[in-house]
């Protein structure tokens, strides 16, 4: 039992484990379901997942750690992903990255002091016709500048 998780979160995780237990290749959809609800995949539930899916704890850890999308620790309330791919680089994303890091006072994989926003790099958002692109939570924004992103953050995260 992980004390940092609420009873409700535990119940959610249990339900997801049960729902995916017999799905072929069910580990990936299970990890997605947990992270969608809880915001991350708590390491403390690896043993339960392993047992239900007949895997070793090491295998569960191996899958969570292999994929950039999954994380085993909580992050900020909102997530800002900045595209680092070539198309965005051709439109000045290196400058955008530097300016955003300076404005937010965080580096990649860090969360602002108020716990509100985590900055992540991403490799391609598929919005290469409107570079540079960022994704704030589940929405993509194109032709961005540091000022536009800052305005978005105020609107979405503090609005």
């Amino acid at each position, binding site marked *: 039992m992980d004390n940092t998780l609420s009873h409700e979160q535990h119940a959610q995780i249990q339900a997801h484990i049960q729902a995916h237990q017999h799905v072929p290749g069910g580990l990936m959809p299970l990890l997605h379901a947990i992270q969608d609800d809880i915001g991350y995949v708590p390491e403390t539930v690896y043993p339960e997942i392993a047992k239900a899916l007949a895997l070793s704890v090491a295998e569960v850890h191996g899958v969570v750690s292999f*994929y950039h999308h999954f994380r085993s620790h909580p992050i900020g309330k909102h997530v800002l992903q900045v595209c680092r791919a070539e198309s965005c680089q051709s439109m000045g994303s290196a400058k955008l990255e530097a300016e955003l890091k300076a404005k937010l006072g965080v580096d990649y994989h860090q969360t602002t002091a108020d716990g509100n926003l985590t900055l992540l790099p991403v490799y391609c958002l598929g919005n290469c016709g*409107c570079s540079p692109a960022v994704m704030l939570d589940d929405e993509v924004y194109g032709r961005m500048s540091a000022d536009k992103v800052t305005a978005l953050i105020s609107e979405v995260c503090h609005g």
Partner: protein
Amino acid sequence: MVKVYVPIDSTALSLGAERTAKKIVQEAQARGVEITLVRNGSRGLFWLEPLVEVETAQGRVAFGPVQPSDVAGLFNAEFTNALADKAKAHPLYLGLTDELAWLKKQQRLTFARVGITDPLSLEDYLAHDGYQGLKNALAMSGADIVKAVTDSGLRGRGGAAFPTGIKWNTVLNAPAEQKYVVCNADEGDSGTYSDRMIMEDDPFVLIEGMTIAGIAVGATQGYIYLRSEYPHALKTLNEAIRKANLAGYLGENIQGSGHTFHLEVRRAAGAYVCGEETSLLESLEGKRGLVRFKPPLPAIEGLFGKPTIVNNVISLATVPIILDKGAQYYADYGMGRSRGTLPIQLAGNLKQTGLVELAFGATLRELLYDYGGGAASGRPIRAVQVGGPLGAYLPESQFDTPLDYEAFTKIWAVLGHGGIVAFDDTVDMAKMARYAFEFCAVESCGKCTPCRIGSTRGVEVMDKIVLGKNHPQNVQLLRDLSDTMLNGSLCALGGMTPYPVLSALNHFPEDFGLSNKEAAA
């Protein structure tokens, strides 16, 4: 009631289409103008997004780009009466959409419906030739369906360009209780978004293509392995699959034919290497995305060890038109051994970016200047990367190369998934070469040594070259390392990272602080 179209494609949304749509509805209500708002896909003219269209007796009329602040002005100009002089006088008036030069010159086969229909309307899909391919396929034998795909000349649009029909034939002839159709929708290449557009803007065409594939080879289960960076595509696909099931186009006894095909979307989790088919299959099985040795081919031993078709979104979405209009109709487009059309994606530093579907054979120059309008910055285009992060950088002297798989192979480049990323003359090609190694180091699955170690050594050697340390030795080392990666890697990630690196070195030695002679092999 007049129909007004505002796209729901991610790129249009990324430029504010949602707000524009809301504002149009508000303004129409406030003024008592009766409209029906349709959320269509994108026509693929991204510099004009959000592109608003109005239905008229002569066809659709376009206005764009329309920001929420433009909406009141459009109503003042009575834009819903788009054929009147008052609407035509509005500064955002573009004329009949189909007459726009960018669209008119295209040959849209795979993208025939994209931007025209409501992506989630099955009625719209059926009214625009949807499910004609399946209808024909249901009257054919599996072998005849495979033959049609083979005869069309369709080659894997994901990048490898392997003949689709030959792959299908292997699965058809592999005896097994269970077979699978897997759609590779892990579109991770920079500069590419055609898969995303199909999935968001015309999802039924992909579902139809996969269903035909399943019926052809006797596979009853399909999976779409979708990258996690595409949340809109996920929602659209799931909804389209739900509707197709309800209407008897998926599930048991499809359209009374006795055939079964179940389809499910599985989310990837941000690993570029999972675009490689065997790594993708590992991931679908719930494992780390480690590349498998080949043989066995996935067509023989694929998902869960069973015969599996693994095809890219565009390859599968092209199958319906081949079965509808016939193999010859498709094969009549193109040049040489590159038959049919290629949905090209213009990206990066260009004035006019977007989706251009053309028969193979157009030159890069036509795409960069006639369609792309030159660099967005107004500066000269200096380098172009075609085919994603593992594609070669091409200098201006190669811009007359036709888009054809073999023509690109001849100049040691790849066409890949048809993404074209333009850079102006401010680009530092040594930095781009270093970045290629850095990317490979981050994304390597770690299974083979040339990729896992070579990529990190590559970053180090590049740093030394840029600092001017021991140039002759380090350039030699860079070439040796590239040779090892090219020939010794298990998959294309390590095996093709040398393409951007060496093409940058060969075509732009001055950025590495080298003369042509010093850079030479």
